[in-house]
């Protein structure tokens, strides 16, 4: 199954390796490098069954109730972008991690790490946006923390959250539950968050009305769970794009996934930006979409429920889980040929070649 190459301890290799002795930006992009950090550093240290599932949230038992816990950190730059800001992103991202496990999100903690010199007005705007997002998602910010770091040590503002939610007794969703024959459902068009951010970036700017799709998905999830409790798995593809999420599911369930390029919705602006910069939308970040692995028998009704919800109007069935090529995601191209949808090592970079 192993998709990453043997690391520096491949003693048979005579050629010199660039040493991985420093953490790189790529380690935070949600792709292979991130997975390596988890596998090589974090898992061995923190080993326990709840963690080992490696889902977006952990499920623990407390006095007979199943509680979902998640933690997340938000380091987005710029702090304010079309469709949101670091505050609203923090709420939606945390709520979504809980919702992907089928939990009803209830409480959030919010910790601010502020760079010395940040305008108080900026902080106020972020906090107000955070509160609005929390209110509309029906969650309460119940505790928090503040630290200030020296100028130059941060990107203005970082936010860390912890979210707590309650799981219904009969909901059991996890990335290791996909089975051959299952359908892969996607709630809407991909790449909007990533492109909204990129459009503002120095050196790459372009004019676009794309807004981040950042949104809380728990009510969409609830409408799907109303149709059936036995959805195998839900994930919200964030950094690393749809590809990373599907590769993770394929790896954890030890199944193959076959996508159909035709059915993956991509907005016109995201398309134009990706063609211009040489990016593949499958690897561009989202913040308000979900992927669900569903038994084929109920895929139709679940899809209908999604399309009946504001955040799922463009939902599509985009592929199938297969027993072939376990751990690998492939795609039938618009030409009818097949290509592999590999997991990226780090961030996707714009190219001129």
């Amino acid at each position, binding site marked *: 199954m192993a998709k990453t190459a043997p690391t520096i301890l491949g003693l048979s290799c005579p050629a010199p390796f660039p040493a991985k002795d420093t953490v790189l930006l790529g380690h935070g992009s949600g792709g292979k490098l991130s997975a390596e950090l988890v596998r090589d550093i974090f898992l061995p240290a923190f080993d326990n069954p709840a963690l080992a599932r490696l889902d977006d949230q952990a499920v623990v038992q407390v006095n007979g109730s199943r509680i979902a816990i998640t933690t997340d950190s938000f380091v987005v730059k710029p702090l304010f972008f079309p469709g949101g800001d670091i505050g609203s992103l923090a709420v939606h991202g945390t709520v979504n991690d809980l919702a992907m496990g089928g939990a009803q999100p209830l409480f959030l903690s919010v910790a601010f790490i502020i760079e010395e010199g940040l305008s108080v007005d900026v902080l106020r705007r972020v906090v107000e946006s955070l509160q609005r997002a929390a209110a509309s998602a029906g969650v309460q910010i119940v505790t928090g923390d503040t630290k200030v770091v020296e100028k130059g040590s941060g990107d203005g503002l970082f936010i860390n959250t912890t979210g707590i939610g309650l799981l219904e007794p009969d909901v059991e969703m996890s990335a290791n539950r996909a089975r051959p024959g299952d359908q892969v459902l996607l709630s809407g068009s991909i790449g909007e968050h990533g492109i909204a951010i990129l*459009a503002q970036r120095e050196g790459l700017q372009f004019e676009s009305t794309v807004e981040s799709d950042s949104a809380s998905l728990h009510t969409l999830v609830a409408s799907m769970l109303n149709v059936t409790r036995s959805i195998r798995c839900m994930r919200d593809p964030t950094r690393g794009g749809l590809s990373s999420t599907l590769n993770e599911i394929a790896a954890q369930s030890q199944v193959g996934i076959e996508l159909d390029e035709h059915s993956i919705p991509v907005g016109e602006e995201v398309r134009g930006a990706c063609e211009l910069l040489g990016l593949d939308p499958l690897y561009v970040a989202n913040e308000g979409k979900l992927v669900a692995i569903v038994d084929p028998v109920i895929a139709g009704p679940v899809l209908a429920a999604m399309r009946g919800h504001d955040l799922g109007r463009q939902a599509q069935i985009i592929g199938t889980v297969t027993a072939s090529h376990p751990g690998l995601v492939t795609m039938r191209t618009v030409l009818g040929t097949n290509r592999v949808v590999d997991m990226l090592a780090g961030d996707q970079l714009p190219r001129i070649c």
Partner: protein
Amino acid sequence: MCLAIPGKIVAEELRNSLRIGRVQFGGIVRETSLDFVPEAEVGDYVMVHVGFAISKVDAEEAERTYELLEEMGVLEGELPPA
């Protein structure tokens, strides 16, 4: 290499005696240098590489050759076995 994509000129201006166009690619628009395509005007399509238009798309030629291709697509039908 040489990622160049076709875009439509939607506006143009002269800035410091350089011809700059606003060129539309799908749903987005980007500033693009038009200095290498003096014959291109608003409404034309140009091939753009790293922010510079390097050719004006020859619409007539494209249409002519495309008609032939379409005929081939209609006539030939199924994908040959691998």
